[in-house]
């Protein structure tokens, strides 16, 4: 499958969420799916304070031509995959544009200030409206809910990857996903991950 094409070169993906949600894991899996097909991939991340409740972002640059910088230029992200809804809003400030696509998990991870009762967390409707104002297409799915039903909240990240495959024109295929996962997890866990991946694609194709 080395004649894979991307509609834009470089294609810029941002995976965002809250530290500890599995941002890094998701970006690695996604990146390796492209590496399978001989793309140049750069992932830019900053960790360190992420475990202590901070927002985290991974910038993925996908290109057929060359290696790109680990930071996406302002306003040039093509798609946001957000594991947490308000992080999607936050990312749009610096990296959004009117053509951007937004795919977000619905489950809130409330900041300490909200939990403490000092700030308000917007409703899902308000979030939807905000995202729609700053993008061209928005999908919000209950990835964590479904993952919990399947038995493990971390599967939420896999569902999001499947959903990404469903909403974008990126060359993301299930057998590449399977190849990448087989290298990193034991064979008895592959099935449930594949199920999660499929579920994600299904959820956005309704």
């Amino acid at each position: 499958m080395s004649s894979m094409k991307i509609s834009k070169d470089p294609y810029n993906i941002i995976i965002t969420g809250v530290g500890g949600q599995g941002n890094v894991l998701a970006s690695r899996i996604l990146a390796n799916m492209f590496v399978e097909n001989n793309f140049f991939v750069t992932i830019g991340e900053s960790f360190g304070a992420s475990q202590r409740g901070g927002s985290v972002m991974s910038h993925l640059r996908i290109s057929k031509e060359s290696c790109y910088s680990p930071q996406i230029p302002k306003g040039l992200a093509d798609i946001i995959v957000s594991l947490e809804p308000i992080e999607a809003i936050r990312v749009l400030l610096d990296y959004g544009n009117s053509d951007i696509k937004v795919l977000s998990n619905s489950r809130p991870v409330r900041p300490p200030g909200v939990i403490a009762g000092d700030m308000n967390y917007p409703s899902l409707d308000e979030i939807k409206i905000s995202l729609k104002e700053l993008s061209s297409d928005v999908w919000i799915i209950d990835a964590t809910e479904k993952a919990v039903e399947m038995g493990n909240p971390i599967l939420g990240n896999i569902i999001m990857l499947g959903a990404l495959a469903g909403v974008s024109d990126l060359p993301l295929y299930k057998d590449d996903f399977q190849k990448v996962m087989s290298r990193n997890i034991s064979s008895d866990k592959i099935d449930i991950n594949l199920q999660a991946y499929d579920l994600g694609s299904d959820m956005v194709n309704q």
Partner: protein
Amino acid sequence: MSFLMDNTEKARYLLLGNEAIARGALEAGVNVASGYPGTPSSEIIESLSKIAKDANIYVEWSTNEKVAMEVAAAASFAGLRSMCVMKQNGVNVGSDFLLHLAGSGTRGGMVIVPCEDPGALSSVNEGESRYFAKLFEIPLLEPGDFQEVKDMTKWAFELSEKINNFVMLRSVTRFSHASGNVTYGDIIKRDINAQFKYDGFILDPMEGLPISAPVEYKHSEQQKKLKQAAEIFEKSPFNTYTGVKKPELLVITSSACNLYCKEAIQLLGAEDKVGLLKLGTTWPLPQGLLKTHLSETKKVLIVEEVLPFMEENIKVVALEMAGEIGNKIFYGKNDNTLPKVGELNPDIVTQALSKILNLKYEQRSDEYIKKAQNIVLTKAPHRELTFCPGCPHRSSYWSIHNALKLDGRKGFVCGDIGCYSLAFLPCGFSTLKTLHSMGSGTGLASGFGKLKQFGFAQSVLAVCGDSTFFHTAMPALVNAVHHKSDFTLIILDNSGTAMTGFQPHPGLKSNAMGEEVPSIDIAKICVAMGAKVRVQDPFDLENTQKQLLDLMEYKEGVKVMILRQICALSPEKKAKKKYEMSIDENKCIGENCGCNRLCTRIFRCPGLEWDAKANVARIDDVICRGCGVCADICPGKAINKKEAA
């Protein structure tokens, strides 16, 4: 077998920059790797630890960076290849040794790898180690993409052996913690027989004495080595030029800025106007190469981070050859084309280029930006940094803060480096009042504790972590005890180097390679020094506060309180909850007089949430780690803890 050891020809992997450095060292046949945990460098040692046995490498988390450098140097003197790894300011810690090592020279290839943090994404400084290369007169290498990160690490060992001196290879967060495609090279097989030869002629670099004296002689030898490197650099494939022969603007760059410059040029469509000279060898500068390119242009923009290191060095070179190449117009940091602080990114470089070349660039409408700003203000509540749920520091600082308030003498805490540094924020009740480098909290306290003769009447406390204690707090503590300084040091012992990823340190029973090793007892050391020592569990708030107040009553000498409780993120702790927590709504006083939401408003553990509709606090079972401490602070006794099954 680890992916790092894959010896398939031209294997291709997506690697973290730090993994690429580890692979480069492996390919060079590195034998010894040492370092001290520091973001963004830590994964280098961690990667090598995982393959240490299989690859026969000795990997060590040393007590501090200076010792780490000495450990690596010993290996080099014994004819082995060694690498020493740290974050940017680790070089500062070991700089005295490096000064002398540069004079004595090295034998087996030795590479120092500072991983810098422009923009201080995970630091409290954005210091630079490049100037040290110039100061120590040793070569400096800066890889400009992920492939070079690996290739240049490998080559650095070769270079070091050619000139008999150590080499500095500089990485940055945007390489070390970023990932990119890397094609593997061969793993060199070297015959090794570790032996420290010293019986030859005293001045012989390989068989004499590795000392920096006689100074003038060794110093001039050192400068000859540097000159040798400069000649090698003239032909280095790591210095590349892309662009037309006579560009309107010559951009000279290094490190991750290379990728920003490439992208900026592309975004502006300025390939015909801009020539990009990427230097991988940034000290000593390849003057011949520079002359070639400087002669072909009038305008030069130098793009680097953070300080104008290359800019100022290139300007000197350009001035010296001005007679031959003419005067140039320089753009960079000194003329404010580029910001003097913080990290760079493609946008900053694009803006600089568009200004110099008068090219328009607008990626988004002002309208979009304004709309986004308004929305983020109201719909994206800020995420404050906080301690993890179940973190012992939250409890420690609770007791420390309250003890200081009760003591009532305008007391304060001198802070140090680790997760517990966050206590200058509300999550630590704004207890820390100073924060500098590793071990400096104890040093400052030692100083404050001697100011009574000038009317100083405030209570002095200092904090440090268990790893920080061994790193540099110990000599400061000796100083304090010996000089009878009046303060209390609180050692926050959570059994690991937590902020950087929970690496081991001498207080623990295992090392970087997972072997069992003797642990060193912090309490015993402090007692041996002659301090008054107490050990306490910080989760026991009442006794911690009481003990601390008792210690603070001693007006003479050093007191040490060790607050020992394991980190909430440690593998042991993560597995099990000690308590199941619940709230009796009927007893919750909430916003009323008598409580005013103490648990959610002040204590602020993320496991406690305020339900504004029902006017009660709740436990979030998913986030709560079951430490049980909140039950002890609730004035209504509404929080219950039950031992988990």
